[in-house]
């Protein structure tokens, strides 16, 4: 299957998943609603996207955007999956059942953004101490212990 065929196949799937397909340089970008995320992931795995390289989130100010980057060694191509979650008690389905590599990366997103992954086997903080208050990578995070860099440096 060539990258062209992959795009074609994804375009065929998109109405069923309510997904928007676009291109970003070499990569396919698939934007789905959070309800269809798990199904999209299993479809991608079925297609041959067997490696989850990155899980991260973006704080857009109004809500959070989850970003997953998956690659396929057999198809030699990669894709981004994006989905949006609300700011208040954000929750999104865990992709651990599909790609076990999601485990620690989702814990990192939980640690720094406070996005809860439903169905995750071990939803604990990973980089910060367990009793840490707040979610440091959110734009509205404010820590009194942080010393701001003076302008003259």
């Amino acid at each position, binding site marked *: 299957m060539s990258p062209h065929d992959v795009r074609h196949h994804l375009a065929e799937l998109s109405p069923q998943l309510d997904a928007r397909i676009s291109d970003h340089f070499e990569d396919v970008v698939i934007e789905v609603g959070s309800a269809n995320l798990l199904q999209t992931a299993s479809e991608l795995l079925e297609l041959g996207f067997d490696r989850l390289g990155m899980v991260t989130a973006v704080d857009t100010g109004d809500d959070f955007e989850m970003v997953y980057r998956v690659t396929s060694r057999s198809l030699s191509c990669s894709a981004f999956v994006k989905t949006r979650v609300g700011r208040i008690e954000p929750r999104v389905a865990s992709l651990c059942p599909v790609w076990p590599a999601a485990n620690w990366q989702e814990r990192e997103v939980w640690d720094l953004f406070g996005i809860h992954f439903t169905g995750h086997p071990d939803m604990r903080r990973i980089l*910060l*101490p367990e009793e840490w208050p707040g979610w440091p990578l959110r734009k509205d995070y404010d820590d009194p212990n942080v*010393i701001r860099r003076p302008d003259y440096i």
Partner: protein
Amino acid sequence: MAIVDNIGTALSGSGGSVILTSVDKLVDWSRGQSLWAFPMGTACCAMELIAASFNKFDFDRLGTFPRPDPRHTDVMILAGTITEKMKPAVKLLYDQMPEPKWVVAMGNCTVSGGIFYYDTYSVVRGADTFLPIDVYIAGCPPRPESLQDGIIQLRELVREESIAPGKRHERKTLLPRKGEGAGDAL
């Protein structure tokens, strides 16, 4: 060092201060010549620590070589950024080292937080906020020569100790701590 400590107690009990001076010198000299190091490498500085231990710089010739077990070591070399999450582990390993023990802070991160001093929520600003540091080595990272120079300076400190219980010097620090004057402004 239990045997050495007992020598100190026995000799001071018998009032042999002249002999004790010589024993002191001998013990301190030997301690200084074999400061086994516990390499607490937590970030990039650990690379220079590793480089210092291998053949080009050859730390062994100073009697310092890395042991992975804190219970075998005399000096803890803190090399790298210490995060809030790592802090309890560093403290625990320090507590496991037998007395007498010394700590060398290698690199700006362990001295003051280094480049992570500003705008960072997760980094401890200087290891001296929770451990007694004996030698500070600046640099990001310091070259292996600086580290070896630091160990040679540490020997000077080691030679100030006495094995007699009553004469043991209080742990000296080369720089003022937070809350003791000069450090307050930070």
